[in-house]
């Protein structure tokens, strides 16, 4: 029953998709600081879709896992995704622009932009995406632990969320959605 419902939903989704994307979440403009230390305004994306997720560079598992998956999605999507940037919004004050730049430079397959900002700016963006984070002292020698939303957001040309990818999402699905965005 569930399977057939899911199948039906898939069929319906397949029929309806190519023309108009349903917006899952209207986000609105936001302002942060990019990995070169310059002010970043979301309007600068100017009609380009984008991927966005929250994280921090000391994140040992979830963030590199998401990053490798996104890298696979870019390889899969090929030239169609060339103009889609990935915005990595750090919620950790330790991540200064130079740290972010070095961190993201390592993931060569991803056209990534690291974003940070004041706590107020970061909190505002987190809220706009319906995300959460919490910086805790867990007694780790690596410093505070940062719990955070690890969903991957696909934004359309208006900067609104049209797809949400959970951590178990498949790189191929992400690639497909990027091509259709």
């Amino acid at each position, binding site marked *: 029953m569930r399977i057939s419902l899911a199948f039906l939903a898939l069929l319906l989704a397949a029929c309806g998709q190519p023309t108009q994307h349903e917006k899952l979440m209207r986000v609105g403009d936001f302002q942060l600081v990019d990995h070169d230390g310059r002010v970043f305004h979301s309007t600068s994306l100017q009609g380009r879709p984008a991927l966005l997720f929250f994280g921090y560079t000391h994140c*040992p598992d979830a963030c590199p896992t998401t990053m490798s998956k996104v890298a696979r999605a870019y390889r899969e999507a090929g030239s169609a995704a060339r103009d889609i940037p990935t915005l990595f919004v750090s919620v950790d004050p330790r991540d200064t622009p130079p740290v972010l730049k070095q961190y993201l430079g390592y993931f060569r397959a991803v056209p990534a932009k690291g974003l940070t900002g004041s706590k107020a700016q970061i909190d505002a963006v987190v809220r706009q995406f319906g995300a959460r984070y919490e910086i805790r002292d867990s007694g*780790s020698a690596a410093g505070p632990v940062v719990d955070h939303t690890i969903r991957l957001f696909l934004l359309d040309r208006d900067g609104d969320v049209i797809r949400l990818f959970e951590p178990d999402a498949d790189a191929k699905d992400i690639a497909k959605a990027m091509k259709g965005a």
Partner: protein
Amino acid sequence: MRALIAIALLAAVACGRGSEPKTGRDLYLAYGCAACHGENADGLGPGAGLSYTKPRDLTKLDQYRGPKTVPGIASTIAFGVADGRTGMPAYPDIPQRERVAIAEYLHELAARPPRPKLAVAAAWVRTPNPAVDVAAAFVTLENNTSAPVALVAVSSRQAKVVEMHETKTADGMMTMQKVERIAVPPHGAARLAPGGSHLMLIELARPLLSPVELTMRFDDGTVLTAQAEIRDAD
């Protein structure tokens, strides 16, 4: 118990027609011995808990109460253990030739070196990002004993500190916790993998050289080392 064996036997007989199992192990499985004695003949079959007598660990010949020779074991299979002293029923319908093959298989098992009580497999370290001084390591911990054990400490010459971390994801939110132990269930394994638990290597040696040796201490006093290859996730 008997019903279970009978069902297993029936199934085995029904399936076995025409395919003619050959080896002692094939016969051991085909006649349903594993129902009580376990797939590895260690006495831990799915039906073991239903028997009032604990099924024999057949890999330990010195613990047999009956005969230990091949003809002796073949005879035990045919006649069972008399007077219900144990739960071992008689299987007079198994041809002598096949009973001998099963007995020879059990002798072969007994001659094998025992499996290590604890083992570490599939160890790897995710290539560290040059911007940060941490890296996650993943291993599979195997417990071949019937008692629970736990990993309680990890160290490496290539990291100042190694911690055990558990990550959980609920409602799209990832939470991570430093833990003091990672339990490995009896006759089971704990798989540390992306998205679950990991070992966090902190303050890495630079350059970090592959393989990274990890020394793991368990709460039963066992110390194991693993050579973890450095690689990317995919």
